Structure formats: structure tokens, C-alpha cells
């Protein structure tokens, strides 16, 4: 099942599908030049930072928990523990077996 990272439950592990797409309502947009998806994409530098930290397609990622008041997510990837903002996290698509 392909879902944004934010919809994983605490403790759930999934495989990253892509980091450079945007959720428009329920529709997924992967190609920024495609029509109808001309709204602002995720900050490209942030995507770069995410991949540099190891969140590349095909990598396993585990959601540990989220901060209080719907704050950032705590995730575990390649043995390190990261905090990432919710907006970014919602643009990471993962494949999860349920």
C-alpha cells in the first residue's frame, strides 16, 4: 500500500517509494511539470537534505512517534534517529505491508 509517511502508525516500518512528490488533496503528483500540479512543490533543498540523510527510495524507515500537538515525526533510518517536520513527512511516500 502506498501511503505518505505521516499515516504510518507508531512503530510501523515501511519502504520509501519517493521523496519528491506532493500530495494535492488525495491526488499524488510526482512530476512537477505535469499539468494541474503547478502549485508549489516541496522545498527542493529540503528534499536534498532528506536524501542526504539517507531517506532514499528503497530504504527502510520506521516511525517511532510524533511530537506532542501534532508536531514533527521521530523516525529511524539507516541506524540513525531523525526528527522531520510534518510537511516534509507527508511528501514522503512509503510502501507498507499491512
Amino acid at each position: 500500500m502506498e501511503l505518505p509517511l505521516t499515516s504510518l502508525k507508531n512503530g510501523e516500518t515501511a519502504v520509501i517509494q519517493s521523496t519528491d512528490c506532493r500530495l494535492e488533496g488525495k491526488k499524488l503528483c510526482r512530476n512537477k511539470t505535469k499539468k494541474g500540479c503547478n502549485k508549489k512543490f516541496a522545498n527542493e533543498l529540503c528534499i536534498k537534505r532528506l536524501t542526504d540523510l539517507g531517506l532514499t527510495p528503497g530504504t527502510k524507515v520506521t516511525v517511532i512517534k510524533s511530537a506532542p500537538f501534532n508536531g514533527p515525526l521521530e523516525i529511524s533510518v539507516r541506524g540513525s534517529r531523525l526528527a522531520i517536520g510534518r510537511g516534509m513527512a507527508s511528501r514522503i511516500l512509503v510502501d507498507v505491508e499491512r
Partner: protein
Amino acid sequence: MTNNHFTIALAGNANVGKSVIFNQLTGLHQHIGNWPGKTVEKAEGTLHFKGYTIDIIDLPGIYSLSTFSIEELVSREYIATEKPDLVINVVDASLLERNLFFTLQLLELETPLLIALNQIDMAKKKGILIDCQKAEKLLGVPVVPTVAVSGKGVSDMLETAIQVIEKKRKIVPLKPRYGKEIEERIEKLVKILNKTQLKYPSRWVAIKLLDEDKEVEKDVQQVSPKTVTVAQKLRAELEDIHGHSCPTVVTSERYQVASRISKEIQQITKQVKAPLREKLHTATTHKVFGVPIMLAVILAVFVAIFSFGDFASALLGDLFFELKPSFESVFGTGIVGELVWGGLMEGIIGGVTVALPYILPFYFILYLFEDSGYLSRIAFLMDNLMHKMGLHGKAFIPVMLSFGCNVPGCLGCRIMETSRERLLTAFVVTLVPCAATSVIILGLVGNYVGIQWALALYIVNLVIIFVLGRIAFKALPGEPTELIMEMSDYRVPHIKTVAKQTWFRLKEFIVMAFPLIIAGSIVIKIAEVTNLLEPIANLSSPITVAWLGLPAVTGIALIFGVLRKELTLIMLASLLGTTNFALVMTPVQMIVFTLVVMLYIPCVATIGALVKEFGWKKALTITVIEIALALLVGGIAFRLLTI
């Protein structure tokens, strides 16, 4: 490089132990400043070892050599253009894969390299064993195991470093290889690039062009615009093949190399059960308990610092004032004596009684928190709130500092990643009421009008910060970055490093703020002895009296309060001729006065810090905006409260 004078740069991810190694190597022979024109800290030091003189540079902690943060740009500029004789890549042995990802990029930059495999003690505790010889073979550069905190392996590392620099070891560094599709395209680009003159190696530039690196693209555009167009085409091809953006493909393949190497050289023996540090992490980031714990910790720290500070400050002040008679016997009690004691000496006393009792413990605790890992947990908890102002969680740290003093707050904005965020944070930070402002809020309004009014003022201030933060966030061009931060394991802080960091920060504060505080103090004294106060009061009366409804003398207190904010209340008392403010000011006047003090310009030392970090123009803009704001809010409050 001369025969026995080298330059070595330390590079690596954040929290790998670079600073500890740097301190082990350089002791107190260090200089901490900024990279020219950048708000990035630069730590330099010198080491004398077996007849060699070695300059050591501690590069900022980064995860990649791309363009995400100013730190990354500064680091790669430095390595490529200054060409240090050797780069020591400090690697966290317990997080091999991600650290090697960075190592691979250093290899691509074709800089002379040595790897310090640090924290092997921690790795062992986590059940990770690493085969250094195999690592050396696979990476093609020397790998030295170290434990920075105990100094183990550090001299081995130095010996090896010298061997490498003097070319006494044959070294064939690994050239990281990508998949076939990427390699073909790199080769194409290298062929064109070989004809041009660039400060970086061609292969690296080619990779960076595929990586869609805007800075490199700009450089290449100037010498060979054609190459940029070719690269664009090649990127589109790769995107079609892989179905991801080209930078993601390149990064992904580089990670595959890192992953393969790390699997080959490390052996994971056992998974240890969650130790204390894991439990601590769970508690301090807990959904329910995390925030209360944080508030309790911050409150405890502030109470501790202020009660210690008040005590120590009074003690130091008394000590200094015992000197007064001897000064008077030397300089007399005339104008000269007044200037020397009341201007110069009281300025120095003012500085010392703030710096030592308050700023020193403040920095110490801050670095203790940073080194232990708690600061990143605070950022994690506060992210959501800061987000409402367009900032992310890390910005909470300078804001928190500013409740003590705006100067460290401004300097603390360096932890933000982009210059846009640094400026935004600095703006917010200068609106936070510092300890000196709190003295006025509590001493004037809290004492004479009522504590609930003092609290209301704090709330008004927070609301204004919030609203203005949002406006500035919308007004400043550029995109916001979100929180992406590592929360490394909790550790017992390394006291020596913490102490050194505190010392260098304190030094920075003294060098920057003291001259301004002393000059301010002398200016005030001169104005006093030359009878300038009266004209100043009259000159400012259209604003103070007509617009704000305050007594005319408050103009003097407000203007000179910029120079010595902590003296505003004392100054006001002496101008009004009484410390019982209730006799001379109405409650409304007290509230309006305090509001203006709270919001108008940060003190002169803070302006100094702003100039240092952002330049004159931005410092001036922030100052002017805040004066206008203070007068506006003050005037409105006066009219609202007197309806």
C-alpha cells in the same frame, strides 16, 4: 605547505567528535571566529608536534557537500580552494553507513584524506565491530581508530597524518563508482569539462551537474554554458530511466556504495537492550511528559542562574565599589574623577557584573545541554509552536537564550540553516524581553501597578512577537525550510569541551559587548556633567509627553537606556528624584513606559551583535522597525488605557 608547516582540516557529520578531537589537538591555542562574510563559525588552532607546526581547522558538521546549508557551501569552498594539506574525516563508527556517504563525497572531491574512525567505544557498546584493515583496503585511504574523549588513538592519527602529507605512504584512494547509466553520463560531461578551467576536479563537477547543484551550475555557466545544457539533457534521460529526480538517483546510488562498504567492514554482534539513555530519550520526548519535563528543566535553569547571578553580581559589585575611594584620591571628585569613575569604571563594573555572574553560567549550561543532546530534544518538542511563526524547532533555542540576554540569542541564530532563517530568528530574538527588561517589567509595573499587569505585559509581548514573526515570515522572500534534524544518542557531556566552548563564547561576548557598554557609560556621564540632559528631555518631549503621555525626563531614560538597559530603572529613579515611582508616575504611565522599553531597540550590545552577524544595513533596519513599533504600541496603549 612548507617543510614542517601544514594545514589539516577536520570534516565530518555533526556530533561525531570533531570538536573533541580539535580540542585534544590544539588545547587553548585556538581562535574562534566567523568565516569571512558568513554567519558560520570557524574554529582554528595551532599544534606543535615533533617539530612540526600544524594549523588545524574544525569545519562545521555536515552530512553532505551539497548546497542545503551555508555550512556545506563553506566547507566545500574551503576544501577546494584553500586546499588543506590533509582532510581528516572524523567518522562515527556506530553510524557507519551515513558517515561513509560523506566520506565518499570527500573522495570525489579528490582531497588528500585520512579517516579517524571515532567513538569505537560507543560502537562496541552497541555491538558493532569494525575491521579497520579492510576499511583501509576498500576505501584506499588510511583509517585510524580513535576514542576522542579519552584521547586514545589521537597521536597515532597525527603520526599517520604526517606520513600521508609527506607522502611516505603509498595511497590509492577509492573512486566511488555509480551505476552504468550514470557513469556513462559522467564520462560525457568530464570530456567536455576537461577543456575548461575550474576550481573543482572535473569528475566532481560532472557529478554535481547531474546532482542539479545550483552553485556549481552557476560556475560552469560562466565558462561553458554548453555544458549546462548538455547536463540538463542528460538529467532528463536519467529521470526517464529511473523515475525519480536526478539528484535523488545520484544520492541513492552513492548511498548504495556506502551501504555495501559498511556491510563489508562491520560486524554486528548483538542487539543490546534499551539502556538508560534510550529510556531518557523516551521520557524527554514523550507525548504527554515531554513538554512538562522541558518546562521544569528550563524553569529550574533560569531560577538557578538568576539566584546565583544576583548573589554573585552583588558580591562583585561590592568588591568593585570598595575601590571607589582610591580612585577618588587619584583622580579627584571633579569632572575628570566623575568621568573616570562614573563613566569608565562603572561601565566596566556593569559589564563584569553581568558577564561573569549571568552569562558565564548561562553558556555553560547551554553547552552542557547541547553536548548531552538535550537541545535537539527541545527543538523537537517546540517545532510545532515555532512553525506558526514560519520558523522551525531549532529557532526556539536562540529565543530561549534571549530571555537571559539578547546578545547570545543573536549569536545563537547560527544554528539555523539558511541566511533567511537566521535573519528571521534574529528579528524575533531581539523582541524577546531580556533579563534587564524583566527587571523593569517586574520592578516598575509588577511592584507599583500589580503583578497581573506585569504578566499581561509579557503576554502582550509574546503576542506581538508572534504576529510580527508571522509578518516578517511572509514579507521576507524565500522558502521556509522545515525541521530536519538528527537526534543523536544522549551522552555524558565531555566537560573539558563544554568548558572550552563556554570560555570562547564568553570571550566573544566580552570582546563585542564590553567596549560598547563602557563607551555607553562614558557617553551618559559626559551628557550628565555637561548639562545636556535637560535639552535632551525637551527635545524628546513631543514624543514622550505628547504622544506617549509620559513625564519629559523619561526621554532621557529611554535614550540612554539603549546604552545601558540594565540601568534604565536606576536612571529613571535618579532623574525623577525618588525611588517611589508611585509618587511621580501614574499606573498608565508606568505601563506605557515599560511597553516602550520592552519593544524598542535592543540595547547597544545587541545592535553590535546584529551588525557582526548580519551587517549594518540589516541591523539598522531591525532597529528602526522596532523603535517605530515601540512608539506605535506605546501611543496606542496610552490612548486605550486613558479612555
